[in-house]
């Protein structure tokens, strides 16, 4: 999951970035409105966490510009300006969720996960697809038989992206883009390695290879 964190307070941004990465997000950080808007325009983010009081360009203007360009990336506004009139304005501009500061990191993560499921048409408290259930808190996967398996960080990221897009062919490039942050040294072979590992854990048939196209998440085999 690629996540753009827009926050001008370096201390908070640093600690938040660490926490979000721990939760399996590939986080890019922007510390001003202009950079944020540019990154949002060129990178295929899955979610944006947007502060409103930004240097150079106000957060609401950034959001309004994205929406004006037809960019529908899910946006959570995270701000100290949490009066109701500000929330109303935020939602009217096109935000998908709104969280007032100060906040608990778990709440932010829970909201991001809920927003992810929503934007992939998967309502419900847990991410489940193809008979698998993903415990995002513990980064474990529950097999149809009830068995719990631990996942490494990258395995978790990759499986989550597969599970959010079941039945869709995902190219290696796309997987790389959504699993690793911007300045990660991308080597598409890595994806092959991790797909193989997932197959080992979940069963051979759960991820099919479409030659020349990419991978397809189907379902876990008993």
């Amino acid at each position: 999951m690629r996540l753009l964190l827009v926050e001008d307070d370096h201390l908070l941004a640093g600690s938040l970035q660490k926490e979000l990465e721990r939760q399996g997000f590939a986080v890019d950080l922007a510390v001003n409105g202009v950079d944020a808007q540019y990154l949002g325009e060129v990178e295929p983010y899955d979610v944006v966490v947007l502060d409103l009081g930004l240097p150079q360009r106000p957060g609401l203007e950034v959001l309004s510009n994205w929406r004006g360009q037809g960019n529908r990336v899910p946006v959570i506004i995270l701000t100290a300006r949490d009066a109701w009139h500000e929330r109303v304005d935020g939602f009217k501009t096109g935000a998908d969720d709104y969280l007032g500061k100060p906040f608990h990191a778990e709440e932010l993560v829970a909201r991001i996960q809920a927003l992810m499921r929503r934007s992939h048409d998967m309502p419900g408290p847990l991410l489940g697809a193809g008979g698998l259930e993903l415990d995002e808190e513990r980064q474990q996967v529950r097999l149809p038989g009830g068995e719990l398996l631990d996942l490494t960080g990258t395995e978790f990221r990759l499986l989550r992206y597969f599970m959010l897009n079941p039945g869709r062919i995902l190219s290696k490039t796309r997987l790389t883009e959504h699993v690793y942050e911007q300045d990660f040294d991308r080597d598409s072979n890595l994806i092959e390695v991790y797909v193989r590992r997932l197959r080992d854990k979940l069963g051979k048939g759960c991820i099919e290879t479409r030659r020349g196209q990419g991978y397809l998440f189907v379902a876990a085999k008993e």
Partner: protein
Amino acid sequence: MNSLERRLQLGLVISLVVLMGLLWTVGNQSVRELTEDFIASRLEHDMESLLGALNPAEDRPRMRRHRVSQVYSQPFSGHYFLILLDNGSQLSSRSLWDQSLPVSPLQPGERRRMRVTGPVGQQLLVLIKGFRKQGRGLTLAVAEDLTPLQERRNRFKRDFALLALAGLLSLLAVQRLLVRRSFRRLEPVREDIRRLEQGETIRLSEQVPTEILPLVQEFNHLLGLLSQRLERSRNALGNLAHALKSPLNLLTQYLDGQSSDAGPPRQQARAQAERIRQLMERELKRARLAGKGLSGQRFDPASELPDLIGALQQVHRERNLDIDAQVEAGVSAFGDREDMLELLGNLLDNACKWAASNVRCIVSANSEIQVRVEDDGSGLSDQELERMTRRGTRLDETVEGHGLGLAIAKDIVKLYGGEMQFGRSSQLGGLEVCVHLPRGGGGTG
């Protein structure tokens, strides 16, 4: 006595009455003196001709009739004379008939003027003089009736009084008209102030009479200052909130980041950080309230409420709530936009938190604005309801979870001089919060 019009009228009445009274007295006095002097001089002439017609040489004085005017012959004609000789005999005009005049003899050269009541009630002016003719001392009194003159004078007095009264009344009427007309020019100012109160304008028009222009200008100056100050303090508070929230946020992150079984001290610190957050939130929100009276934008429920409901639906999306909002026809804009959004936002947010699936909000208006928010949650027990309704109880200390939002809502209602009641929703079964807000600025309009 605070009406300028009354004051002006009273001043005018007093000065006019004094002036008219003075004129009336002086005029009467002069007319009276003038007529009496005139009659006296006529009597003097009569006296001279009588003296000429008198032959006092004999024992009984004689008059040469043909030299005496006819008026002295007709009985009670109003013109009389009486002559006293030093030997005690007297001669009176025929007109006196059987009456006499109260005259005592005078030394030659003496002269007296007096007023007496004569025959048939006539008011007489009597002129008496002492003479010496052909060696004999005699006293001659001539009298004339003043009644006809007095009647004329009374008529003049009455006419003058009537005229003065009419003049007074018409002057008052003219003045009233003028004053009214001048004050009517103040009407636009009053209208402006009403519109200001309703938030339809932010300044008074300066197209006013010169006399009150400085007042209006000063008023506008203060208005500008006030809204500037409100803007500035709102901004300052916003910045302060921003500045305070970031470190607090870090603190929260830090405390959250530790393993949860780190023992009581950390739990305590976490609880305190949460308390600081709540206190700060409430105080900052309270300080940001604009209150009734002047403000930039009014809250128009018909257009704003749907947006607010939209925001709430997004916030509580996971809950799949059915939020029903109705604004009755004829509810015009009221209150400050930010304040009202905060009030309704907090009430509805609270309802959404506790609702099972339904939230309803009805905004209506008659003599006051009424906002009712109901939910179908578990509501409150009778005891809790009673505790919340009790005066002076701090909301955030009473019912767990219904804390901050309702406390802020209560602050807003209080600031607007309204009332907030808690009850059980008869239709949905959960909590019902009913807010009454007075219309307009402060009871007017």
